[in-house]
């Protein structure tokens, strides 16, 4: 393409009135070896744009999101935690019941012991009663 045309296109380009096709022409012009010296300064601009388009996203497209993984791990963690709290409570309750049972047993034992003492004393009373009965009968 002749120089005059390119200059006109450049002018339009900087006013942002060029079409996509015209801009393509400009990029093509600046990608070739001989560029008019007074236009040389624009070369990096157009070459850069062409080059910038070559850049690629090289990573894998992540379709198995790690978000899911975290979701399941958190669900599992909550399950384990509530399991622990539930059974921990049960265990503690059992311990408490055992303790209460032992204390009660101790109290009953104490009571029984004292009852035993009581009955021993009652034995004397019975003796007294028997003696009293003998005396009554004799009269």
């Amino acid at each position, binding site marked *: 393409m002749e120089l005059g045309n390119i200059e006109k296109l450049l002018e339009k380009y*900087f006013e*942002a009135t060029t079409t996509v096709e015209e801009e393509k022409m400009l990029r093509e012009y600046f990608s070739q070896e001989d560029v008019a010296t007074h236009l040389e*300064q*624009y070369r990096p601009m157009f*070459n*850069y744009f062409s*080059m*910038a388009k070559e*850049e690629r996203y090289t990573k894998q497209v992540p379709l198995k*999101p790690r978000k899911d993984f975290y979701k399941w791990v958190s669900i599992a963690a909550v399950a384990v935690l509530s399991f622990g709290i539930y059974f921990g409570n049960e265990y503690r309750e059992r311990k408490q019941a055992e303790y209460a049972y032992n204390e009660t047993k101790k109290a009953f034992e104490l009571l029984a012991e004292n009852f035993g003492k009581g009955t021993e004393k009652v034995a004397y009373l019975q003796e007294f009663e028997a003696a009293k009965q003998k005396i009554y009968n004799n009269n």
Partner: protein
Amino acid sequence: MKQAEFLNVVMPFKDKLYRLAKRLLVSKEEAEDATQEILLKLWSKNETMGEYKNVEAFAMTMTKNFCLDRLKSKQAGNLKLVHSNYTDENTSLQKQLEVEDSINWMEKIMEELPEQQKMVLQLRDVEQYDFEEICELLDMKPTAVRVTLSRARKAVRQELIKKHNYGIG
């Protein structure tokens, strides 16, 4: 939508998403993370994806919003530190140095532009979107797009002329 179908839809424009993300976030790693995030979001929407008439435009808008949010939350400052990843092509050494130099220079010029101008340049001059598409993607009026594009191009030109006059490259 099945995996294979989804891939067929996404494959043609995944690079565009990545390039837009990289234009805005500058760092390669950040851009890759952003692209991955967007693809995951798209995949999670795959049930309703048939309803969008233009999945590509939808994904590009998502990328734009995601990256702008990212920039806002990161205060932009610490992101700008990592930008040592320009691609190198294998041409002859002398030529390569020259080309690399001008490419690095352009990359720097692009980095200095305001976000709006960056995006318009990326979408138009790199990806060759139509004006209507750019309006839709960036939610701008056609005149606004034209003005921004013209300003961005002129800003780049000014920097290039400055450099050319110094005779650095």
